[in-house]
């Protein structure tokens, strides 16, 4: 049994190896030595280049081997075949559009040539806008659609691109552009109204979804700044209210939402207030806390190049002159009871600043105590070296007193 099995196994192995070697063996010897000339014709179909090679003045013997090598940007593609019915038919898969050189070899004959592959019908498209938003006024940048249409093989087609644009408040407009340097640049009509400029793009069978371009207001040129509350008390409660209205560009479009408005208020001495607020639908509200220092103030606004104002503002002293009661009660400093000019108690928590001053007026130590129900008490620490008096400040008023009961 063993011997028989071994023989069977050997026979099977021999058969498998023979089949394998046979499959790998070179083709049967072909008649070669074709020494005549050849004629090559080429034809481009979808995704392939067909070559037909015939003998010059004589039929190619059947079985004559030949090859063609097609060189394109992606490299060399080679196909081989043998002649049948007096001609050699070669097919090379190739999809890149443009000019490609080929090299046909049949026996000793060699022919070089060039084949031009044209792009097919556009079926796919890529387009974008640059920029994606423009201002209606100023036209600092012309809105463009940049398009590129491709055939089924991904070649850029030279077919013209047609754009239909729908500007806000205007009739539709058709623009056609030819392709240059693989791209079609289509300027869109300069819009004069804010909104959304829509457009469609088409070339051959290729289309895109509706495109959109934002048409935004131009640079803010005008606006009105008014003081809704121009007078206030500097007790920490009041604030001046400035209203900015109708901020528009030169064409009357409302300024872009978020446009920065800078407001500055100047007061006695070098005191100044700075703030920036964004506009919402052309309006903005500016709140300025009234400072404790009484006097006249001037507010100005600025939005883009437009200057707004000036506006006059008035701050009133929160306390009546000389109405800051401060006294020593033993070792404790008592402040208050304070009553504001409007006859009310100051807000609980209003800070009272107590400063220890030297003979030259230098602040040696500073502490803050809060007012509660219009009063505050202060238990001073040991007197700092060099201190000669105390200064108490609250709501813009101040009082100076000797060290008194302080140790």
């Amino acid at each position, binding site marked *: 049994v063993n011997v028989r099995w071994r023989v069977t196994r050997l026979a099977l192995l021999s058969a498998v190896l023979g089949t394998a070697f046979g499959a790998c063996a070179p083709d049967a010897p072909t008649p070669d030595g074709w020494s005549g000339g050849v004629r090559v014709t080429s034809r481009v179909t979808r995704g392939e280049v067909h070559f037909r090679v015939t003998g010059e003045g004589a039929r190619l013997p059947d079985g004559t081997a030949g090859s063609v090598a097609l060189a394109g940007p992606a490299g060399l593609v080679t196909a081989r075949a043998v002649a049948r019915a007096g001609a050699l038919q070669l097919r090379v898969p190739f999809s890149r559009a443009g000019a490609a050189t080929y090299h046909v070899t049949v026996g000793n004959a060699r022919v070089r040539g060039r084949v031009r592959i044209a792009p097919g019908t556009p079926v796919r498209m890529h387009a974008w806008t640059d*920029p*994606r938003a423009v201002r209606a006024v100023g036209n600092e940048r012309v809105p463009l659609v940049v398009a590129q249409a491709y055939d089924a093989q991904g070649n850029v087609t030279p077919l013209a691109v047609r754009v239909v644009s729908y500007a806000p408040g205007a009739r539709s407009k058709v623009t056609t552009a030819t392709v240059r340097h693989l791209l079609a640049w289509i300027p869109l009509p300069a819009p004069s109204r804010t909104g959304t400029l829509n457009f469609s793009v088409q070339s051959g069978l290729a289309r895109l979804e509706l495109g959109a371009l934002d048409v935004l207001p131009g640079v803010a040129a005008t606006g009105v700044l008014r003081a809704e509350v121009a007078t206030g008390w500097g007790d*920490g409660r009041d604030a001046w209210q400035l209203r900015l209205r109708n901020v528009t560009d030169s064409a009357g479009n409302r300024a*872009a939402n978020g446009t920065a408005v800078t407001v500055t208020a100047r007061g006695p001495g*070098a005191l100044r207030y700075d703030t920036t607020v964004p506009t919402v639908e052309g309006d903005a509200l500016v709140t300025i*806390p009234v400072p404790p220092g009484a006097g006249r103030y001037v507010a100005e606004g600025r939005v883009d190049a437009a200057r707004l104002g000036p506006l006059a503002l008035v701050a009133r002293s929160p306390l009546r002159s000389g109405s800051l009661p401060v006294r020593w009660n033993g070792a404790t400093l008592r402040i208050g009871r304070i009553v504001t000019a409007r006859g009310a108690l100051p807000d609980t928590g209003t800070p009272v600043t107590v400063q220890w001053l030297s003979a030259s007026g230098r602040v040696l130590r500073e502490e803050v105590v809060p007012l*509660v129900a219009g009063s505050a008490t202060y238990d001073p620490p040991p007197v700092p070296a060099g201190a000669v008096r105390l200064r108490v400040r609250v709501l813009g008023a101040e009082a100076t007193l000797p060290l008194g009961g302080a140790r």
Partner: protein
Amino acid sequence: MWSGVALTLTERLAGERDGLSVLGAALLLMALLHGTLLLGGSFERTYDALIHIFFASHYAQAWFDPWEPRWYTGFWMVSYPPLAHYLIAALGKTVGLKLAFALVQLFALLLLTVGVYRFSRLFVPPRAAGYATIALALSSSLAETVHVFGQLPTTLSLAFLLNAIPFAWAWTRTGHWVFLAQGVAWMAATTAAHHVTTLFGSVFFTAPVLLVAVLAPLGAGGLRGLPRHWRATLPGALRAGAFAALTVVMLVVVVLSYWAWSRADPITQVPIPHASRFDFLANPTAGLVFWVVPWASTLLFLPYAWAQARTWRWPLVASLTLLFVLGTGGTTPIPRALLRGAFDILTLDRFTFWATMLILPFVGLAVQDALGGRLGARLTAVLGARVRHVAVAGLVVLTCGASMWVSTLTRHRKFQPPEIDITPIVSFLEKDQHWQYRYLDLGFGDQMAWLSANTRATTPDGNYHSARRLPELTTTAVERLEGAKFSGEAGLESLRYFLTTPEKHHLKFIFSNDAFYDPLLHFTGWHRLGTLENGVALWEREDVPPLPARLPRPELPTYQVVMWGVLPPAAFVVALASLGLAARRRTHPDELEPRAQAAPAPAPTGAVMTAGRVRVVRGVLVGAVAVLSVTGAVAAWGSVRAARAPERVVLRYWDALDFRRYPEAYALVQPTRGLTQERWLLDLSARGGLRASYAKLADLRVLSVKYDGSPPARAFVRVRLRWFTALGSFTDVRDHELRRSTAGWRIVIRPDVQERAPVRFTLQPSLSAFTAPRRLTSPGDDSASALDRPRLDLPEARLVRFDSPSPGGPGGRASYAIIGTVRNEDARPADLTISGALRDASGRAIARVNAGRFAMHKLLPGETTPFMVLFEGINAPPRGARVAGASVDARAVVTGRGLTRNLGAWSEPDGDSLRVQVANTGTREATVPRVLLGVYDARGLAWMIEAFVPLALAPGDTAEVTLRTSLPPGYSVLGNAERSVDGVLLSGRPGGAGSSDAGALPGGRRFRLWLDAFQREGE
């Protein structure tokens, strides 16, 4: 001292069985104690375990790929021996990586137990070796290494080493080739697990053992007999030499790629401070972690071990002593002198760990001696039988307690942030191709490695310092960007660089688990996208390009790649397979050191000590206890007394507040009517802001203490607090009044009365914007085409030179800055990036960085921001480079974020300062308000100064800050910077745009203010 009676073979085998039964108990104890903790996931709270799991995740995905791109923009895996990681990777395929780690660690511990027994048997009798394994299972050092440090290669490689050494011993003594083959195979496995163990283990473990084996033929004479009988040692010496040579060959071959890497790519990392290198006396915390805890369970046996130096075991004692000294870190100059350059690279805790392993044979011997030997008899004589039993029982209880305490240390003392569920982060990175950008995590601790192990996204940070090659990281001693705040100002400087210049490393996303960094992120141009389901805040930076489709990566020769993937696991397999050889050629007890077979001499029947000597020893003991007690009591009394002083009360109060120990802090407050603990806590939490929510108390110094009354009834303490924040440090001087009470000095704190207007309902219009979801439609898309760039106006910008303050003292280093303004000319809000570069005479860029905090990054239409690109610190040009010019570029993308403006400020010059009263006029809290002051000279914007309001401003609140308006020392204008024309509108206006509106300052200068704020609630 030792029984000179030769034991019969039967007695030896009986003793061996005795030892093996104790070994069995030790294995059971090890599995129960450490196995339970490991399988319960204790390693997830350790320092290193997740790093090894990350490495294993790499091999699980690509066994033969030695390049890991997920950390540090890519590093070589061949920089770390891979066996442990291969084992986890292989096992992780079926049980998951975390469980695989636990199983491999448990395997290593059990193997280590066997190794300790076999190693100890070379020096001590079987029962003592068994006790050594029990001591191992209860070792505080092992518990700390496994359950606190999370080290696996250390335990695994030591397990291989201790099992290899008996083979080397047997080879040296007998010359059987089988032992040589086994020894070399196990040394190869040691190398595959951790080459450092082979390297140093050869010195500290193998060498003393082989020395004993080589000198064994000299008999009792020891080294004294060497001159006359040196020929007898020759065979053993030659065999030991052969073993050493083959060990070196294995050391080179098994991890050949590592040696090739370390030679071709030497570590350029500046030393990163490690507490194991500190002076433990000057830094008691480091001493506790790296000396007291590891030695807790075995330190008592050290004198006994040193006493063995007079026996034939002296080489082992010498090795133990050397390791003991090396483990003391910077406490003595000896380790630095011995290790030289390696001192700043190695973590010295490994020496202490090895020392605590090397002492185990002596521990076992001491225990056996104490239980039934002469030591026990002496203890009985001195202490009495009852006290001796109590002392031994107490020692066992203390050891068990110490072991369990250390094993669970990470549970009751947090070394890591609470466990983070990484699923939402991984999901975010995977969707919409977010992995095409790099990310950074903050406040993750070592869990950053677990996140990396589960995502293909990459991060410029990492947790394996030896491998990093980015100059921004290798030039700083920052351990991880993730925990930059723990490295102080230097750490934050590194982090700031990455946050300021994110596009260089394609860094787009930050996952923040630590609000400490939030203000820094905001003011460097990042915005918060939201909070993930796991509570981690997600931040994003605009205008960062995605990673290229193919990242650059170096290649190793194929043979090295194959060797790295094959040899280490093969070494492990061969080592285990070699045990089959042992079955055929079993080690006979006679081949072991005969001197190690003898049990400690039994206690003599008579008195072991004279009565006089017992009295002396007792006297010394009692005296020592008394001295220690008195000293301790005096120190405790002094400490308590000092703690009651007013200044100490204030220090304790702030310390307790800083660490959120509120009850402890409130206990130091003088009881005041109306100030309940609830009210006090409410006052503390009512006003958040930079100081309350984003700062850490870095330093607290008492400036003055004054008393009032006699005896003093009141005290006034002035303290200076230095707060450390992500935006820098600032100081704060506080005056505290204290009153003496029966409980001691107490701080007077009054209820916080804040100014609040009556409740009013306020409505304000606001802006919101929608931007299309971020999505890269296909990998081939150019992301730039999806961005629309607003038009910017970049007027002239100037290059200035100034002296930045030197941290070391007076004088400063020359620094540079580009200063100018940028205006958003577009009708849409812009997210701004301003880049500056310094150039040498040839036009080559010698330093490049973006404007970080000194700019407002989100600009409304028509809004202007000043900017200052700072070249100082790690952004400074290289030393010796000559700055000849500069260039600046500004670019932006449309944004819908950061559109709120709700701050205004009254300002008034006061000498060379500007007093600014910041007011919140909006409807939302300004958590960290900021004032940017632009100082103008005749030519335009000259300098910028920033100030942060330390308290949050609720709507209607005001707060005052003071800014100095002077220019920095050494200020000079070098010229104008070139401006890029790419997408930027260049106006010819001078850099002082807007100066006509500016306020006046003394000296003819002018100023402008810009205000913005970080809002905790986001937008």
